[in-house]
């Protein structure tokens, strides 16, 4: 396996023939040159599919793999349409597909991004046609050889089969197939009843490389003549370099250069340039560079507009919420009048701390710029944004910039940014040598684009019969769009106008209030769904309890009968109430909601619609002394048709545990000097094996709907289900994330 794999890798870049299956599906044509047709063995049928004489089928995977399982799922979608023999499939990551047209970049491979669980819907949309196009060529090649027509032939597991039972493997047909012109009409897509791979479990295609330690992440790459760079960065957001002395550092054997990184340009969005001013030590190896950093004497100058801690932001939020909203996001009926006259009124405020991404793989970037060519190997979720950063800093033509997409050790939004790539490009340009930029764990915690702090002011009212008549959700937060967009659009990253309970309650208002912050903010798993669902789902539980209603029955009554509501955001155009109610019921049943609860055990529920996926969580917890035990965690999900159930279960299990881990103990705070106080996992505890539930019961609803992806969906409802279970078990109502310090304070 390994040797075949290596041989495939070596030959992957050779263009040996082909026909643009991509032409058929409206993807840009793959630029191939007949002069390069070497008449050798592996045959490239289109940008994604290459077949070797022994039938080994190399499928290129275009989206960045960050642990969401896209390499496996994407290859399964394509292999299904190709009717490939999965045992002979090798999946290789594709680079960013870009050529130059009229001096501008022209993307050649369609969707290439790991964000918002969009890769699967995009792949479902165009990759079946790519696989089917390659299959059609192979079938036609067999038809020509057997002097029959394609209609008389069928395919199964990498073999073309004639009506009389004769068989030809794809490996033997690939050369002939590559010389055919692609069909003028789009091949018939497979019917779901014909699926043999989609809907079946597949283990991660990189599993063997990972368990043998041979999987290269970006941080593991190396080039000849490379200098390792480590940077000490200004600890004060917006601060400057006051003075530095590099005499001691430059005397160290192996330290080659000390360079300064200028402070960011305030007119340009963060994430496209270095986050702060810095001093870089360039050395022959990582340890020498780290020692060089330790030997530097650097003084930083604080900016007058220092970053605010969450306490100061909370004060600012209280002030903002007392005034007029920055943006009225949604108004249905008349909430104010309804609330004023309602017989039952409820109010609560939820506060959600700033958090960091804390990917296990810290940022890094390997950059080589020479002969009018740039090579970038970094953990990237948004390769086109990385590309644009490199292009701006180098001025190179688009086709001279090569962005590789190595497997990344997490992502969660951190690698959507390219600040670390910008640093490495600036250093590589300055010294004229390849640079391997390493970030330390402390760097990763102290220089992140954090999930913003927010305060959620919730109000609701009910009529005499306990039915909700009014709902108000007002958010004060520090939008991450502040540096990118005009003020009128800042709310877009913070609130979704059609999120529930909008459409369920007649008098409803959603409003957003801007807070200012000097801390850089960025995208985070499930974006604002994660924090807004916490406030909404906890408050519903709170109201149900105040009305002496069972939380499940209250939620189901609120959702009402099955119907579709319009949904304008990502995941729309509709939100199907019935699908959400169904996963809620499934989760409640699996946790034993209507069974007798063990003494002292609290049960909690929550559900949310995220990016087109319907997910509900149910938790069973108890306190053993001052230890919180999560006895059972259930995640029920309707994600449309599931391409790889094993992978989807992993994504939902992981999202559930990450949701719990983030909610329980994670918080970024500032010290008295306005610097980030968390430097490592000791200060910023991720859940450990001992703290995680032993199992997450994942229930996948069988569905014929289009697939949605899974990575973000399992995250938002985990934390509120936990908080609601804690209330049921302890009578302590949690109004904050992180939950743990608040629980310890109130118990």
């Amino acid at each position, binding site marked *: 396996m390994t040797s075949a794999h290596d041989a495939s890798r070596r030959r992957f870049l050779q263009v040996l023939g082909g026909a643009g299956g991509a032409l058929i599906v409206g993807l840009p044509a793959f630029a191939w040159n007949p002069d390069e047709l070497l008449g050798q063995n592996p045959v490239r049928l289109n940008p994604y599919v290459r077949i070797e004489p022994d039938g080994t089928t190399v499928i290129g995977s275009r989206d960045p793999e960050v642990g969401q399982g896209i390499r496996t799922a994407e290859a399964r979608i394509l292999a299904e349409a190709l009717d490939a023999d999965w045992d002979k499939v090798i999946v290789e990551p594709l680079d960013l597909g870009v050529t130059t047209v009229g001096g501008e970049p022209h993307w050649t491979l369609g969707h290439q991004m790991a964000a918002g669980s969009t890769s699967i819907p995009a792949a479902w949309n165009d990759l079946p046609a790519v696989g089917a196009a390659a299959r059609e060529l192979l079938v036609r090649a067999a038809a020509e050889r057997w002097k029959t027509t394609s209609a008389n032939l069928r395919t199964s597991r990498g073999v073309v089969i004639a009506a009389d039972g004769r068989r030809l493997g794809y490996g033997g047909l690939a050369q002939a197939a590559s010389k055919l012109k692609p069909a003028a009409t789009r091949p018939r897509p497979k019917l779901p009843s014909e699926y043999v791979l989609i809907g079946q479990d597949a283990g991660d295609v990189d599993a063997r490389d990972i368990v043998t330690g041979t999987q290269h992440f970006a941080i593991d790459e190396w080039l000849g003549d490379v200098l390792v760079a480590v940077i000490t960065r200004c600890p004060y957001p917006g601060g400057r370099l006051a003075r530095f002395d590099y005499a001691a550092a430059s005397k160290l054997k192996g330290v080659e250069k000390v360079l300064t990184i200028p402070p960011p340009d305030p007119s340009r969005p963060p994430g496209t340039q270095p986050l702060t001013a810095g001093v870089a030590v360039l050395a022959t190896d990582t340890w020498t560079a780290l020692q060089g950093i330790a030997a530097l004497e650097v003084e930083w100058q604080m900016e007058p507009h220092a970053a605010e801690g969450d306490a100061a932001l909370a004060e600012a939020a209280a002030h903002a919420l007392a005034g007029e909203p920055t943006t009225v996001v949604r108004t249905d009926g008349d909430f104010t009048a309804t609330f004023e006259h309602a017989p039952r009124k409820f109010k609560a405020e939820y506060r959600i701390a700033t958090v960091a991404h804390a990917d*296990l793989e810290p940022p890094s970037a390997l950059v080589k710029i020479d002969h009018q060519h740039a090579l970038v190997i970094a953990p990237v979720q948004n390769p086109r944004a990385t590309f644009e950063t490199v292009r701006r800093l180098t001025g190179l033509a688009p086709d001279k910039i090569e962005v590789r997409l190595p497997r990344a050790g997490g992502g969660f939004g951190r690698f959507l940014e390219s600040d670390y790539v910008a640093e490495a490009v600036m250093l590589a340009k300055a010294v004229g040598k390849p640079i391997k930029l390493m970030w330390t764990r402390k760097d990763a915690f102290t220089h992140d684009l954090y999930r913003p702090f927010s305060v959620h002011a919730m109000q609701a009212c009910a009529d005499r019969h306990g039915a909700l008549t009014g709902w108000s959700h007002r958010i004060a937060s520090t939008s991450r769009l502040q540096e990118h967009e005009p003020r009128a659009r800042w709310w877009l990253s913070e609130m979704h106008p059609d999120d529930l309970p909008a459409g369920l309650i007649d008098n409803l208002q959603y409003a957003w209030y801007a807070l200012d912050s000097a801390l850089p903010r960025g995208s985070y798993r499930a974006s604002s769904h994660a924090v807004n669902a916490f406030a909404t789902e906890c408050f519903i539980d709170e109201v149900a309890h105040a009305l002496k209603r069972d939380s499940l029955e209250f939620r189901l009554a609120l959702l009402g009968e099955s119907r579709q509501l319009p949904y304008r955001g990502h995941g729309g155009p509709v939100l199907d109430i019935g699908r959400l109610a169904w996963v809620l019921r499934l989760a409640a049943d699996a946790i034993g909601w209507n069974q007798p609860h063990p003494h002292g055990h609290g049960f909690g529920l929550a559900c949310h619609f995220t990016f087109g996926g319907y997910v509900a969580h149910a938790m069973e917890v108890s306190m053993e002394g001052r230890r919180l035990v999560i006895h059972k965690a259930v995640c029920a999900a309707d994600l449309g048709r599931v391409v790889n159930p094993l992978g989807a279960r992993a994504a939902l299990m992981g999202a559930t545990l990450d949701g719990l881990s983030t909610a329980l103990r994670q918080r970024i705070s500032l010290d008295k000097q306005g610097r980030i106080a968390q430097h490592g996992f000791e200060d910023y505890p991720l859940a*450990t094996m001992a703290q995680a539930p032993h199992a997450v019961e994942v229930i996948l609803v069988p569905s014929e709907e289009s697939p949605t992806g899974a990575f973000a969906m399992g995250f938002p409802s985990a934390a509120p289900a936990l908080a609601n279970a804690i209330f049921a078990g302890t009578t302590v109502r949690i109004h904050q994330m992180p939950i743990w310090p608040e629980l310890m304070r109130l118990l």
Partner: protein
Amino acid sequence: MQQTPQNPPAAITPQPVRSGIDVVVNGEPFRHTGEPELPLIWYLRDVLRLTGCKYGCDDASCGACSVLVDGKLKLACTLTMQSLAGRRITTIEGLAGAHGELHPVQQAWIEEDAILCGYCQPGQIMAAVDLLTRKPHPSDKDIDGIGNLCRCGSYPRIRSAIKRASKVMRDKPR
């Protein structure tokens, strides 16, 4: 590595032996002639390019650089080369057999699909190998003792993989 036979030279000029720290990594002898204070993690990653030993933190809190030293679980970030003279170090790359046959723990990881992003998994596997060496039939509480961090939330599958490997190793000792 095979080398073509060479004729012996006419005269031999003796070279002073380069002094250094001798270690055995995955069964192969190496002599480290650089800084004695070099931490093992950077020796493995930057010198030997055994990058399965991952960098994850600065304070020995994540476990991503877990290796075995004389069969015992250690964090490569906490050891200097001078403390390792004469020691036998096993990294994730040295766990499989000479012909690529996987260790039962590696095989169990694949069968349970305990991967997610995969960055912490080499360290998790080394910790599991160590646990199963000390406790061939670990309880859930024993498994809880593994402190390696996973941001993605693969813990339940790691737990299942350890139990699977334990059963395989019990049924078929290596």
